[in-house]
């Protein structure tokens, strides 16, 4: 290349860079001065709480900064539709980004996606009471144990705050920090597998989902002693207040809520008649077998029924053989007063709901937590 060509290249690069930098600076300055909305009043539940917040951010992140956690799986990108809230005043019109997630009735009721609503002025919102108990936790991983070849149990000792209050069956959202190609923290929901009286730590049961952002991180990067963040508790998958007989059906990491529940029942002396059907393929997919068997002996009304759909020769399996729905069908008699609790994959739950209904248990007595 000759000197003339270099000069042309330098001038070109300088010109494009100069214009881009000038525009960039203008945009940054505009963001600084124009998108500064000062302080706005945030009224929660008709004056129950009035917060002074800095305007300009989304309602979701503003509430999060004030310690009020709204469930959100996508992290505020408007793609999960979980962060719905009633906005009473000051939310502005419904945006085109929200309409796919809202029904006509919800729009009429003032329901909005809190990640899309920007706090520009004084705003009044309505938040369900149980979300106030939700907060953000910092903890340290004290144990990562292999349950099966693809399921791990994670124990997280709490650092800040030091204790957690929740009802067994509820879930938390574990934060996966940015790693590798994952550029932003991602939150994924996991049921708490530990009982509430063990309130200085939580346990999670996590199954490896091939290609999953969070599970890959748990299985390959996370080590004992690492610090993690999560928020919760969320969810309505909790025991009813009745004395009715219960049937539990779970598969894989669907074990989690029941492993907490059964220990909670033992600790608090709940003596409801309970039969727990746990489905797996072969013996290598079973876990917590000895622990549950000994609880069965200690608790007179609790029965544990592990079911293998295709046990290996080497398993020397003497227990039930068949799909969990078939075993349920075989062992349970018609009982319209019982309740059923299910946790596992969508396919297992759909099949189980059908099997349960044939026993005369009405739909409103069937509670479930679908893992997607």
């Amino acid at each position, binding site marked *: 290349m000759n000197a*003339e*060509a270099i*000069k*042309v290249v330098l*001038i*070109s690069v300088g*010109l*494009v860079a100069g*214009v*881009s930098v000038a*525009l*960039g600076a*203008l*945009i940054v300055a*505009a*963001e600084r001065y*124009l*998108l500064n909305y000062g302080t706005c009043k945030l009224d929660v539940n008709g004056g129950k709480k009035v917060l002074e917040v800095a305007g300009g951010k989304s309602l979701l992140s503003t509430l999060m900064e004030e310690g009020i956690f709204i469930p959100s799986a996508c992290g505020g990108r408007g793609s999960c539709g979980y962060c719905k809230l009633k906005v009473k005043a000051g939310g*502005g*019109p419904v*945006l*085109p980004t929200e309409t796919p997630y809202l029904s006509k009735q919800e729009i009429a009721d003032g329901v909005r996606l809190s990640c899309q609503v920007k706090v*520009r002025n004084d705003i009044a919102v309505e938040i369900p009471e149980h979300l106030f108990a939700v907060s953000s936790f910092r903890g340290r991983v004290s144990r990562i144990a292999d349950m099966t070849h693809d399921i791990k149990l994670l124990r997280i000792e709490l650092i800040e705050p030091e204790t957690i209050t929740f009802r067994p069956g509820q879930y938390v959202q574990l934060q996966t920090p940015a790693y590798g190609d994952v550029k932003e923290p991602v939150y994924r929901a996991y049921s708490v597998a530990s009982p509430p009286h063990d309130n200085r730590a939580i346990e999670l049961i996590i199954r490896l989902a091939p290609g999953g952002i969070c599970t890959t991180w748990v299985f390959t990067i996370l080590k004992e002693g690492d610090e993690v963040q999560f928020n919760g508790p969320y969810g309505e998958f909790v025991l009813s207040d009745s004395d009715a007989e219960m049937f539990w059906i779970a598969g894989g990491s669907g074990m989690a809520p029941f492993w907490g529940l059964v220990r909670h029942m033992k600790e608090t002396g709940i003596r409801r008649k309970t039969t727990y059907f746990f489905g797996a393929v072969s013996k290598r997919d079973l876990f917590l077998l000895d622990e549950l068997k000994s609880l069965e002996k200690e608790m007179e009304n609790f029965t544990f029924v592990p079911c293998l759909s295709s046990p290996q020769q080497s398993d020397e399996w003497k227990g039930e053989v068949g799909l969990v729905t078939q075993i349920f069908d075989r062992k349970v008699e018609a009982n319209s007063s019982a309740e059923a609790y299910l946790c596992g994959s969508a396919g297992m739950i759909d099949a189980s709901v059908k099997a349960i209904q044939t026993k005369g248990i009405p739909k409103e007595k069937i509670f479930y937590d679908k893992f997607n």
Partner: protein
Amino acid sequence: MTHDPGFLTTMLLILVSAAVTDNILLTRFLGMCSFIAISREVKTSVGLGVAVCFTTTCTAGLNSLLYHYALLPLSRMVPPGYDHAILSLQLLLFIVVIAGFVQIVEMIVERYSPKLYFALGIYLPLITVNCAILGVCLFMVNKGYGVLQSVAFGFGSGLGWLMAIVLMAGIQDKVQHSRVPAALRGPGITLIVSGIMALAFMGFTGIIRI
């Protein structure tokens, strides 16, 4: 620029010819994607059209300034034979200016007029990728317009685009209640209608000669 008697006439001619005889949408078929997608309701098409018109006017002015006071002088500074290399940067620079301008306008509108923001602001990000805007900026260079002439050209082109999309929305209103063959519903009939509209606009050619 001298304000000779011909000045205002020239400006008016540029404006009208850009809007009617040289309608950027119907004779050049630029900005078709939003034209087809957002032309179902008159109200939204007016919103988008006004936003486009505003952006073409302002960016034509800005880019014309950039062209006449940065690109042209620089192209004269480089050794002969290389001036085209510098001038070819216009494509890159015009896009950057359009994108930056739209962002800043969006912020200003959001801040000072929430009402306008919800009426027009939501269309602004859509405009960044509207090729009619870039087309206006490149044509004004081809036509050899000065800064003021470019502003008139930008305004006229935007007005023409606005006119075309509002007309189309009005026609779509009728089309909705007519029996369109199933295979042509949606974009198909829109394209046929815009073709006929283009033919109609061609009737204006020859009225104005500049």
